[in-house]
């Protein structure tokens, strides 16, 4: 392991790797990434793996669209031979009330203005797209054919390989014990495998971002929350798009290998680092899934697990430097949708660290909360 670095990135999830890659791509030398376990072992590897562009705010649509461009041309863009198993069979968002449908209409306007090919669908059209769908109480939906699914491990692995090709040092199984500062300035990172002298640190530790920030006495306005998920045995493809409903609270999709992955946003889940699975989730999820897709009834669930959402006050990412400590940067608070915008986040963080103009016209700095500039995104689970 190197004992000097220009930037140390803490966190080997998709965001950390994307940041490391983008820094190196800008010509930043001696970037070192440290990860406590293996790459994508945290939220990245535990997520639902969906990639969608159907958002309600212009800036989320922009980040998602730009990220999708990277997913679509992953091998060429990153110059790595990694198949990320991208499946673009769409996202079908379901509306169960007029309010919801009205919101979709507004969203689609924003999306279309950015060239995202989403459109409104009737219950009949929804049934045509997903023949097994229960259309009871369904009023309509929104569908974007270019949304889909990608393999989070492969994406992370692709970024790390691309980063390594550009000279980044990736250290797995390396835990950060302390960030050393002197007179408010970072002087290095103490890991269980040695000390790395550095003046710049990026906190991309996902569910543990707030813990890392505490090492420099910074309080981030984020907390972690358990979200659960399950997977079934694989069967022949029957469900093309990701199915999602905000009001019925579910997401469900069939991965390219044939298994179904699904989850929902829990009610009253207290902030914690708890990653245990629960039988309550298994029961609630089963009822939801079978109501929505009745033929799933006889399908076997083979695994359930949990991961941490790193929640921010407006459920939007914080990609920013912080005031308290010079050259300490955070990419956190992804609130469950970090994977699908990670490619764009890497670009943004590289802009911030290299003090360049932001590539995308977005507001994700941490000071927005003080300014009262809260982003209100209507489309989250």
């Amino acid at each position, binding site marked *: 392991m190197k004992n000097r670095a220009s930037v140390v990135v803490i966190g080997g999830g998709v965001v950390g790797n994307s940041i490391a890659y983008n820094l190196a791509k800008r010509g930043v030398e001696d970037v070192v990434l440290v990860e406590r376990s293996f790459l994508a072992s945290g939220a990245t590897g535990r997520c639902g793996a969906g990639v969608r562009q159907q958002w309600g705010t212009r800036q989320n649509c922009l980040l998602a669209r730009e990220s999708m461009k990277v997913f679509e041309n992953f091998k060429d863009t990153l110059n790595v031979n990694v198949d990320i198993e991208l499946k673009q069979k769409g996202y079908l968002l379901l509306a169960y009330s007029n309010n919801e449908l009205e919101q979709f209409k507004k969203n689609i306007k924003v999306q279309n203005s950015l060239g995202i090919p989403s459109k409104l669908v009737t219950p009949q059209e929804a049934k045509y797209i997903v023949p097994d769908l229960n259309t009871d109480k369904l009023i309509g939906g929104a569908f974007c054919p270019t949304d889909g699914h990608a393999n989070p491990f492969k994406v992370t692995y692709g970024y790390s390989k691309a980063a390594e090709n550009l000279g980044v040092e990736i250290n797995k199984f390396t835990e950060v014990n302390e960030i050393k500062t002197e007179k408010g300035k970072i002087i290095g990172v103490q890991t269980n495998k040695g000390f790395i002298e550095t003046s710049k640190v990026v906190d991309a530790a996902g569910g543990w971002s707030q813990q890392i920030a505490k090492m420099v006495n910074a309080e981030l306005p984020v907390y972690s929350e358990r979200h659960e998920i399950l997977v079934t045995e694989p069967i022949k493809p029957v469900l093309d798009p990701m199915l999602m409903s905000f009001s019925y609270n579910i997401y469900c999709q069939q991965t390219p290998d044939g298994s179904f992955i699904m989850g929902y946003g829990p009610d009253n889940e207290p902030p914690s680092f*708890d990653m*245990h*699975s*629960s*039988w*309550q989730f*298994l*029961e*609630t999820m089963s009822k939801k899934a079978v109501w929505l897709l009745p033929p799933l009834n006889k399908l076997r669930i083979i695994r359930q697990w949990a991961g941490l959402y790193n929640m921010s006050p407006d459920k939007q990412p914080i990609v920013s430097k912080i005031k308290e400590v010079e050259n300490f940067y955070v990419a956190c608070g992804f609130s469950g949708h970090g994977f699908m915008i990670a490619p764009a986040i890497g670009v943004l963080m590289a802009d911030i660290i290299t003090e360049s103009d932001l590539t995308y016209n977005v507001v994700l700095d941490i000071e927005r909360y003080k300014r009262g500039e809260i982003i209100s995104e209507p489309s989250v689970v």
Partner: protein
Amino acid sequence: MNNIEKAELIVVGGGPAGLSAALAAADYGVNVILVEEREFLGGQLVKQTHRFFGSEKEYAGTRGIDISKFLVEKIKENENIKILTSSRVLGIYNDKIVTILANNKMIKYSPKALILATGASEKFLAFENNDLPGVFGAGAVQTLMNLYGVLPSKKILMVGSGNIGLIVSYQLLQAGVKVACIIEAAPRIGGYSVHASKLARMGVPILTSHTIKKAVGKDKVEGAIICQLDSSWREIKDTEQFIKCDAICLSVGLSPLTDLLKQANVKTSYVPELGGYIPLRDENMETSIKNLFVAGDVSGIEEATSAIIEGQIAGLNVAKRIKKDIDNQVKIEKKIAEAKDELELLRAGPVGEKVRNGLKKIGLDPLKNYGEKVSTEEFDISFLMKTGIPSKENLKKKLPLSEDVFNKGPIAISECFQQFPCDPCVKSCPFDAISENGSINNIPYVNFEKCTGCGICVSKCPGLAMFVVQKNYTDSTSLVTLPYEFLPKPVKNQIVLVLNREGTEICEGTVKRVRDGKIQDKTTVVTIEIPKEYFLEARNIKVDGGQKHG
């Protein structure tokens, strides 16, 4: 979501450990739910047609299938035990709720204690075409033939010479399957010598320092390529050999089935002596999670007899925790202490060394309370452990010192040369003529003064290592009495082929007596008259009209 049933104890697994754990706890009034994945109880015991080793107290000398029947009957009679067969534990969650799939429903329990007796799964081996139909685990072969009466193969290659490999090979012969050979990667046979000897005298070659390279066949096994290994387990060039067979049986060890334990986040550790990743536990069988106990193979691979005792220890400890009245406490304490002594006794000899070393690695002292001395007498059994055939020197030590002894009439000869815990020969002798010098782990000796040659021990020895010889039956002939467990059974006056310890035909013999009653319990005791020169060689017979299969 609130229909959670309360329970005192859930025992997971209906094998020997689970059955004895359930019984031990239920005997003190603990309400037990016994969960078994299969539609029947008994676990692996239901396939074990051989007699068990160990102490008579723990059913030694009895066939596994009969031990199973006995335990299952006791379980069914016990009204404190609710049996859930065809039921699978799905999850042990952080809030201590246990979900079980029974009758196509996921039901939930909130138990005070859990005993996991989930057993083991078979290890797999990496060689070319190792997934071809006809490549079986030893358990599968046993299941097919002993449970369902289905012939697994006509001619089989056995990979592995541990006790399971040896026992299953013998069972295959009993079912009418030819065993092409038994190969063993180590330079020494892994199982007990008596099991190997049974196969050697059936003419089955045991090839040590050999391994399998490849299964051959298109849609099913048609043969195998094996090769020889050097002392550092590397293939020796140009030793490849094609073995024609229609099945390959892998018996390369067991590993504890810790899936549920890992799910519950019990601390585990890799201990090769105990089969792989095992749960850390204390001497009362409690894991790193309070009120979560283990017993049997899941806590480390050992024999069924140890599993039964471990089950008792776990069950008794749960009873002690749940039934708090003083009277019970004292009784239970005493029983726990007895069970622990019993377990230490089983592990005290040389074959228990591996287990003892394994237990030390997880911080347990396996001989803490154990004072009995195991004899330091040792035979040089290196030849025996390579071939299954005892050396001349070995035999000499078990024969009378003086020729005169043969003049007194029939006497029993024990061909048991290895120290392991077993005592049915000692316990079965009505004349007290067989002794192990005070320890179940010592080698038994016949006191020829006391022995009358009655032959009771011949069918009682689980290793089929007891014989009776009457050297001077006539001027030119001797009588040899031996155990026989094949079909067809010989009849009086029939002429049979006589084989030596290597399975070679040496002469013909005349059947003089066939004992096949309740006492023999299917281990027929056959007395043959043979030319006198062979009385120390003749140890097996071949009866005309071998088994037929439809």
